[in-house]
């Protein structure tokens, strides 16, 4: 396991505060910094450090691609152990692959590679699936969303 990075109280307050949104105004960092009682330059420096240390992987807006006419889909494959690295390289080489995880169930599900495809259109999803199947020689099972019930992601990081 990677060594955890030490975050001080201000770093934690920054992460907590920014999960609630980010202002759209001329000096947004100054506005957020003011609320936290620190200087704008300090906030920028701390955010850069959190990014450099990969505590944050990205700082910026997240777009709902479905609202823009795009599409997301969860997909899974049954990848033989001996073929794992080759198939992993095939899947990860596609720009439409947003996440890719190895996941296995104790209850004998044969699916072990799970990934999310995101594209500007439904056709882009189909094309990505077709390409993965062709290059890997394995079948891709897609799990389209039927209904969205709840989406919220805020993680309190107070000590």
């Amino acid at each position, binding site marked *: 396991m990677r060594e955890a990075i030490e975050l001080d109280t201000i770093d934690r307050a920054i992460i907590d505060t920014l999960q609630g949104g980010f202002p759209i105004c*001329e000096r947004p*960092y100054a506005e957020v910094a003011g609320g936290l009682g620190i200087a704008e330059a300090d906030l*920028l420096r701390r955010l850069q450090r959190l990014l450099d240390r990969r505590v944050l992987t*990205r*700082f*910026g*807006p997240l*777009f709902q691609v479905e609202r*823009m*006419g795009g599409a997301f889909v969860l997909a899974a494959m049954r990848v033989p152990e001996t073929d794992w690295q080759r198939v992993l390289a095939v899947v990860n080489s596609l720009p439409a692959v947003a996440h890719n995880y190895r996941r296995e169930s104790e209850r004998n599900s044969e699916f072990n590679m799970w990934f999310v495809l995101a594209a500007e259109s439904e056709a882009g999803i189909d094309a990505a699936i077709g390409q993965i199947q062709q290059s890997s020689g394995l079948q891709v099972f897609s799990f389209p969303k039927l209904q969205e019930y709840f989406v919220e992601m805020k993680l309190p990081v107070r000590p």
Partner: protein
Amino acid sequence: MTGGLDPIDRRLVLSTQGGLPLVPRPYHQLAERSAFRRQR
């Protein structure tokens, strides 16, 4: 369903995919980077 993104919206989405610039006026920098005309 299409979200009706115009070409400028699309450029804005693309230009922030890597994140928001860590500079005091990030939206100005996006505007300049994407050659948007700022309204003053």
